[in-house]
């Protein structure tokens, strides 16, 4: 499918508007022809022949025609703009929805600024094409053929002589298209890089300042900024090569008409009046030729902009979103059977190896392990942010892959390590997963997460607006709001990925006590680095390099004198001295 067919699939939904616009375009063109004809008639009939009584109505027709014509043009401009905006709206919506359905693998490899560039700058090239270029092309084609028809009635040999130039123009425009396309693609890519760099600079502004790397950032920026300029200049180079030639060829038509037409008049094959009339229509022929180069540029800009958008629209999610006819309630049994996992981009490095365990509803499983041992990945398999490379994850005895993914996630909630909060009120952040949540329930859950007090202490309480990613809140506050958010969702399976690491131990203990109470009927997974966070779990697994190296209850694991025991000793030993003993 070429870009034009592709955009047509969107634009054709507004066929009615486009037909209307097309009719108005023709109407306007007729109007444009009428006014000079009337001017000629005034000179002939009124001025030369003295029919002054005809002047008022002729002028009235002239003004009336122009009024109608300009209204028609205004209307079709608006119609085209409307079609352009509607098309854009649809493309953007599709792209946004697509992004919502893509998996982590996609977001791990594509930069935010890149996606932003697709959603903004590239979209604008599409809009420009649909709302402006499209009708300009129609107008040009219309002029061209009208001119050919009208001119051939005056003198077809002269017309043929002029049209003979068009193949040359055709060749040039094709060559220009070919030259312009890669250049415009480079511009889009350069724009995307610039966008990504600035986006990252804004996101990382704290680190930039802390390390006083502003000069380095500026240097990076200058390079990309200059590159963007150079890419635009490359496009100017293409324009410079072709546009003046096209313009020259269009203008040369006048010379040919004059020379050849003059010859025809001299040899009496045509009257002088005909030549003057012929000349009057010449602009209809050379204007489209003159415009062709500019329009080619716009078309190639559009075509280049669609490439990445269509690539994103066509991106395949390894975890497809399928819709279900009925809602299946999850009870919470989670079983891993010989689960192996590797990341797609590094298949030689096993991240999880032969994982087996079973957790019953209401049970709590604790997970301990080294940094990077695969704990979070393990949890991502339950929520199906990734699927295992081999083996099965069973939920209530059914393969997790057989659940519609959104239904699954609706009942399995994970509190992630990096807490993302939206720039919105605390209240809207908390009820993010459950917008119908009862205020009483929200407060109760905030109490469990020990967030109620600090939230109500804020100047605007629950209506306090937090920054994107929760800037302005301390790490511990973010963690507690995230926890509340997960609890308000009231899921069957709750996963806490190092959720209390930024809290002091007392607060953590308090939260844990409350959590145990309300998760009595939920399956809970707790990833932690502190033994205190998981020691009361019904079962605990210890991960190392993607394998379960120890499992059991707290007491059983201590008895094993292995990694768990070691960690326990170290954490305990660190505060080895009882207060009052020193």
């Amino acid at each position, binding site marked *: 499918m070429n870009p034009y067919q592709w955009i047509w699939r969107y634009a054709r939904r507004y066929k009615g508007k486009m037909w209307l616009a097309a009719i108005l375009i023709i109407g306007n063109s007729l109007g444009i022809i009428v006014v000079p004809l009337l001017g000629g008639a005034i000179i002939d009939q009124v001025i030369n022949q003295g029919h002054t009584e005809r002047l008022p109505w002729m002028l009235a027709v002239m003004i009336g025609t122009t009024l109608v014509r300009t209204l028609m043009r205004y209307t079709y401009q608006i119609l085209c703009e409307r079609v352009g905006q509607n098309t854009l709206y649809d493309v953007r919506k599709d792209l946004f929805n697509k992004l919502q359905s893509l998996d982590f693998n996609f977001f791990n490899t594509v930069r935010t600024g890149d996606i932003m560039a697709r959603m903004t700058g590239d979209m604008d090239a599409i809009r420009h094409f649909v709302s402006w270029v499209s009708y300009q092309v129609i107008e040009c084609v219309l002029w061209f053929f009208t001119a050919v028809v009208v001119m051939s009635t005056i003198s077809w040999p002269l017309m043929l002589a002029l049209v003979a130039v068009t193949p040359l123009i055709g060749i040039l425009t094709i060559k220009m298209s070919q030259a312009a396309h890669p250049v415009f693609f480079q511009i889009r890519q350069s724009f995307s890089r610039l966008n990504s760099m600035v986006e990252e600079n804004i996101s990382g502004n704290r680190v930039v300042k802390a390390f006083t790397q502003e000069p380095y950032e500026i240097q990076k920026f200058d390079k990309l*900024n200059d590159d963007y300029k150079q890419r635009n200049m490359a496009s100017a180079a293409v324009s410079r090569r072709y546009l003046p030639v096209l313009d020259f060829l269009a203008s*040369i038509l006048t010379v040919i008409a004059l020379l050849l037409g003059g010859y025809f008049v001299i040899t009496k094959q045509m009257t002088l009046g005909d030549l003057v009339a012929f000349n009057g229509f010449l602009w209809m022929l050379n204007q489209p030729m003159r415009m062709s180069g500019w329009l080619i540029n716009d078309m190639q800009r559009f075509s280049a902009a669609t490439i990445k958008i269509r690539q994103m629209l066509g991106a395949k999610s390894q975890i497809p979103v399928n819709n279900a006819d009925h809602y299946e309630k999850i009870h919470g049994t989670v079983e891993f059977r010989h689960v192996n996992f590797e990341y797609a981009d590094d298949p030689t490095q096993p991240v999880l190896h032969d994982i087996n365990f079973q957790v019953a509803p209401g049970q709590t499983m604790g997970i301990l392990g080294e940094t*990077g041992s695969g704990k979070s990945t393990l949890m991502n398999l339950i929520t199906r*942010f990734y699927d295992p490379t081999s083996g099965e994850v069973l939920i209530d005895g059914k393969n997790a892959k057989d659940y519609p993914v959104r239904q699954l996630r609706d009942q399995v909630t994970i509190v992630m390590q990096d807490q993302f909060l*939206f720039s919105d009120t605390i209240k809207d952040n908390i009820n993010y997963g459950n917008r119908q949540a009862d205020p009483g329930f929200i407060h109760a859950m905030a109490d469990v997460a020990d967030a109620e007090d600090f939230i109500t202490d804020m100047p605007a309480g629950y209506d306090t607006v937090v920054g994107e990613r929760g800037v302005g809140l301390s790490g511990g506050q973010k963690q507690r709001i995230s926890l509340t958010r997960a609890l308000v969702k009231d899921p069957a399976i709750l996963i806490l990925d190092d959720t209390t690491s930024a809290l002091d131990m007392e607060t953590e203990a308090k939260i844990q006590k409350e959590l145990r109470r309300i998760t009595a009927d939920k399956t809970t997974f707790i990833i932690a680095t502190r033994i205190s966070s998981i020691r009361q779990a019904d079962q605990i697994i210890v991960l190392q390099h993607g394998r379960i190296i120890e499992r059991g209850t707290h007491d059983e694991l201590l008895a094993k004198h292995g990694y768990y025991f070691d960690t326990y000793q170290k954490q305990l030993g660190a505060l080895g001295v009882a207060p009052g003993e020193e």
Partner: protein
Amino acid sequence: MAKRNTYQEDETLEQEFNWSYYKRLGKYLKPYLRRLLVVLASILVANIAVIMGPYLTKVAIDSAIPNRDMGQLWLIAGIFLVTLIIAFFCMRYRIWAITEIGQDMLRDMRSDIFNHLQELPFSYFDSRPHGKILIRVVNYINTLSDLLSNGLINLISDLISLIVTLVFMFFIDWKLTLYSMVLLPILFIWAWVIKNKQRVAYQVLSNKQSNLNAYIHESIAGIKVTQGFAQEDNAAKRFADVSEEYRTTWMHAVKIQFALWPGVQNIAIMTTALIYFVGVNRIGVAVTTGTLIAFIGYINNFWNPVINIGNFYNSLITATAYLERIFETLDEKPEIEDAPDAFALPPIKGDVRFNDVSFKYEENGPMILQHVSFHATPGQSIALVGPTGAGKSTVINLLSRFYNVTDGEILIDGVNINQVTLKSLRQQMGVMLQDTFIFSGTILDNIRYGKLDATEEEVIAAAKVVRADDFIRHLKDGYHTELQERGSTLSAGQRQLIAFARTLLIDPRILILDEATAAIDTQTEILLQQGLNALLKGRTSFIIAHRLSTIQNADQIFVIDHGEIVERGSHATLMAEHGAYYDLYDAQYKMLQSM
């Protein structure tokens, strides 16, 4: 906490139309004025060449052809061809030169706004969605592109043809010329009405664009949460709302913008009609037929540039809405700047003194820190403990001068930090922030972010100290493994280790660790701690930690609560005091004992 803007909320609009924007825009043009003049000269030449065309045609039709003079016809065609060739070369030159001037101006402007952004304080970035900042640096500036390249040039060339035509018209018949001006006031009123409406419409539009951008940005950044909570449908609905608002505002704006053209066109045709009427009926004028026809011809020449100028005017009004936003950003006060007489802080020995420091984010906001005073001697390690939100991070943010103190003063080696350059201050501080930001690029690049000329060996040495070397070597390409923005492919603990290595590599004189090891497992942490202790000798360090185990050996421990230091002393003295610290310790101890 400053007032925050969200994606749903419009930013404030300026009410007054401010001509000084154009003056400021003119400043960007200044360096390229000479080049612009050359382009103008080429346009002048091209215009003269093009004006020759109709004249040559007239000569051919009036004399050469009726006289059957084929020789003269050839001559005319020859001259015509020459004018076309001149026009050809002028156009070639113009396309290149004008694009370059326009692109240079855009680049300068983009560069200015980016450089300025680097000077803005945390509070600027914290108080609005990042998508709204991004749109100003790239998208808004791009909207000026057409205005600055073709728009400007066409304006000047149109103005020239307008004046030339007017002179000709006066020359032919000044009375008719006055008649053709009669309707101009209506055009001015029309343009004025549209200007006012269009400006507001585009201001609103720029806001909606900004909102849309903010929402898209945040949606991408928060996609994991959205998917995790299965809220894709809600996100799509919200997106549709923002998108719809954008579409509606856009349509509203173009409806106003496009209305200028029909106005000009109709007034032009009415003027033509008026001239016919006056000329034919000889109302106050006595013109010959030939003059009338010629005059009508010139009226068309007169209105074409007027229409073009009208279009330029249109895009200028549109651009104003964006210019406002761009200049607004450039006018944003950096707040934290070098004092005019700032000097470079000499190598820090490590004596840090807080004298009665108080802090609040904004004038009427609540006090975050109150009367904090302490003294750390070179080489001491200072631990800050206390509940979350008590103000621990604020203390260290003030030390790096990420915010200015509201009251009191902070001295390093006896020098007030407000008197030294930010660069010299921050370069000597190693700050390990709570949230670890990873840039897209290799691990190597990320670790040496603070010291760009560090060798690979130095990087590896730093990584070894923080025990990151092990896991990095196990990655696909080791130190050359490419990471994505925020390091989404690494675990939180691994990101912390990388950030840790990054901080150590700059060999800071003062080290600040804000919950630096929270996500790191105990075994790694202990190893890391050992490596760190060796490094810390002779350096002043500030450590925020919840696990008291990590800070027992600190020289001074401050317990901070509600923005005040409520207790201070070494572990031993604090334990003996049986105060807040003792309680904290006791609680942790009991918790561990009960395990």
